[in-house]
């Protein structure tokens, strides 16, 4: 990529998402991880004994577990050089007027209040370690929908919280799940009552505003029987020379006949390690859809999964990975078929340019019990220049009787013939390539909320300007 265009791209990110505000925290702990810091997090949140114990046990698990022996290198991360908790407001605010000026200005520049007015049923805005602002439409509140911070849920809906928290992603699942379990702060709690349909999206915005900071939000979602909802999360951070760490855990329970869609647009700045564990358990005839856009971060490792636990359950994953400027996007999905007549679909598309590397890593497991189950996986990758790379690591295990499994993957550059045709119609090479890349990812982009789809197309235009010549 040309240096001038790379600068233009970085400037564009810095202008829209990469700005930073002065740090004005009301509570911040020292760098490093210790029993005392974990205990202080619990104290600051006034947590019950069971949660204090859970955190301390998780810290022990974290200490014992090793970094993954596969995938991108994480050797740079020094867990003692990270701040695990920064609190910027004393209490969660319910109107924008109450939110501290620096935080409000940040979310204003990201367009959150405007989106809330125009498109959304509810908003959570997390700034560093805690949720700074939250809202929910009154009629949803009356219907019994709960959309609040995890801290509020732990205090006000403790039975529901305890019944589901950590049941799908135990602390020992992986090193970063253990770290999150020990140091979690912020994130959303969503409960949709039976037969309730939330038509407009519920949205969370996650913002890191400090260097060498760890954001460990935890999201817990329960879509009760026959309900439906759509949850969207967006992530950004300032551009710093030092790295920060984002290690979230998301647990989603999709009950009988419920339908849930979880959309993520990750556009962290290029100094963030994004290491996330996302999992859904789908009950009888339930439908879970993950839509995952990975555009930013230095290194991403994320493989959302569906445990298709009861008959007729369906899981779907649509993902886009966009690896540029030496980024590594190591993403994928896992579908575990554990009951009969379950089905799943994974469609993953990736674009690599400017020395970026995108990897698809996925698992489809069809157990003996999953008779008559079906799964289909499609991975398509585009490589736009000689400095970039793409890898595909699928693993498919089929034991279920009468099961059908299909997998296809392809890697190619942009076809000369198509490029030639568009250029013969008067488009420049850059315009033609931009159009072809947009067409390549279109099946997934059309599933995104409008403002994200527009933003993604704009981003691609900007980046393609630098990729030709």
């Amino acid at each position, binding site marked *: 990529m040309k240096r001038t265009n790379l600068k233009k791209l970085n400037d564009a990110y810095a202008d829209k998402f990469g700005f930073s505000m002065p740090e004005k925290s009301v509570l911040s702990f020292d760098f490093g991880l210790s029993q005392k810091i974990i205990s202080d997090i619990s104290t600051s949140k006034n947590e019950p004994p069971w949660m204090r114990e859970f955190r301390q046990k998780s810290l022990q698990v974290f200490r014992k577990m090793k970094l993954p022996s596969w995938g991108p290198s994480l050797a740079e991360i020094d867990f003692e050089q990270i701040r695990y908790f920064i609190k910027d407001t004393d209490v969660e605010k319910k109107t924008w007027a109450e939110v501290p000026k620096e935080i409000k200005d940040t979310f204003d520049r990201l367009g959150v209040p405007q989106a809330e007015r125009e498109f959304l049923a509810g908003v959570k805005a997390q700034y560093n370690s805690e949720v700074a602002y939250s809202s929910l439409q009154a009629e949803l509140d009356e219907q019994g929908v709960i959309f609040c911070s995890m801290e509020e849920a732990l205090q006000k809906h403790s039975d529901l919280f305890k019944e589901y928290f950590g049941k799908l992603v135990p602390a020992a699942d992986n090193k970063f799940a253990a770290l999150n379990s020990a140091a979690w702060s912020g994130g959303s709690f969503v409960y949709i009552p039976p037969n309730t349909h939330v038509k407009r999206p519920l949205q969370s915005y996650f913002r890191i505003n400090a260097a060498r900071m760890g954001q460990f939000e935890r999201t817990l979602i329960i879509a009760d029987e026959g309900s439906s909802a759509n949850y969207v999360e967006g992530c950004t951070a300032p551009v710093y020379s030092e790295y920060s760490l984002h290690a979230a855990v998301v647990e989603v329970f999709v009950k009988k006949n419920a339908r849930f869609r979880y959309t993520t647009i990750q556009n962290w700045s290029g100094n963030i390690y994004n290491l996330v564990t996302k999992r859904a358990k789908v009950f009888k005839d339930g439908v879970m859809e993950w839509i995952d856009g990975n555009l930013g971060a230095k290194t991403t490792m994320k493989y959302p999964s569906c445990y298709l636990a009861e008959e007729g359950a369906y899981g779907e994953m649509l993902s886009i990975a966009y690896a540029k400027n030496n980024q590594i996007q190591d993403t994928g999905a896992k579908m575990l078929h554990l009951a009969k007549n379950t089905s799943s679909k994974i469609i993953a598309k990736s674009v690599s340019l400017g020395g970026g590397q995108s990897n698809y890593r996925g698992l489809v497991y069809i157990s003996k019990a999953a008779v008559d189950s079906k799964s289909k996986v499609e991975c398509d990758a585009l490589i736009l220049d*000689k400095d970039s790379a793409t*890898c595909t690591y699928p693993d*498919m295990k089929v034991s279920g009787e009468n099961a059908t499994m299909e997998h*296809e993957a392809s890697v190619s550059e942009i076809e000369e013939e198509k490029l030639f045709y568009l250029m013969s119609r008067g488009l420049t090479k850059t315009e033609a390539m931009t159009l072809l890349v947009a067409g390549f990812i279109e099946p997934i982009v059309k599933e995104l909320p409008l403002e994200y789809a527009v933003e993604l197309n704009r981003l691609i235009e900007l980046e393609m300007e630098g990729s030709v010549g």
Partner: protein
Amino acid sequence: MQMVLLEKQTEFTLEPKVDTFYLVLLDKNVEQGNIKVDVSFKKAGVSCQLLFLGRLKNNSSWQLESNTRHFVTGTSCLTNVYLSQSEESRVDYFGQIYIDRLASQTKSFLKEQSLILGKATYNRSRPILEIFNNKVKASHSASSSRLSEADLFYLMSRGFKKVEAQKILEEAFFNKVLDSIKVELARKLIKDYLC
């Protein structure tokens, strides 16, 4: 294109200098077997086909691995793995395509198909792509499925017993790939061996 039958060993390390068709026939009398084939392309312009064929009998278990690695320009490879699986048979297949940064104008494809005939079978498939050059075409596909109920029903409605109908459909499954063998005698011998 010359044809080479890979036999009497479990591991093969190959560096083709001319266009070659490598054939691996899984021994149908073996209960437990493993075969690993590494093909490294170090001579520009060479083209290869690698074909694994096997009818896995009841309770048999196979571990198969193919690694095709392209280091120079203008090479191509087509890897096909065609297996039918009877009762309680198990197969674990690992297939890698690696294309080096220097290996532009490479074409490499991998296709694995398993036809499930019996109950309690296990099929694991790991087709890997590692691509470090943009001037290439590479793909893999893997599928595992049972005989079509509609096809079986049709043949049985024409008077075939279920076992006969299954055999016809199994032959048809292998014929899809056997047609790529241009030497008629070789094709016939392989067919006789399989069916």
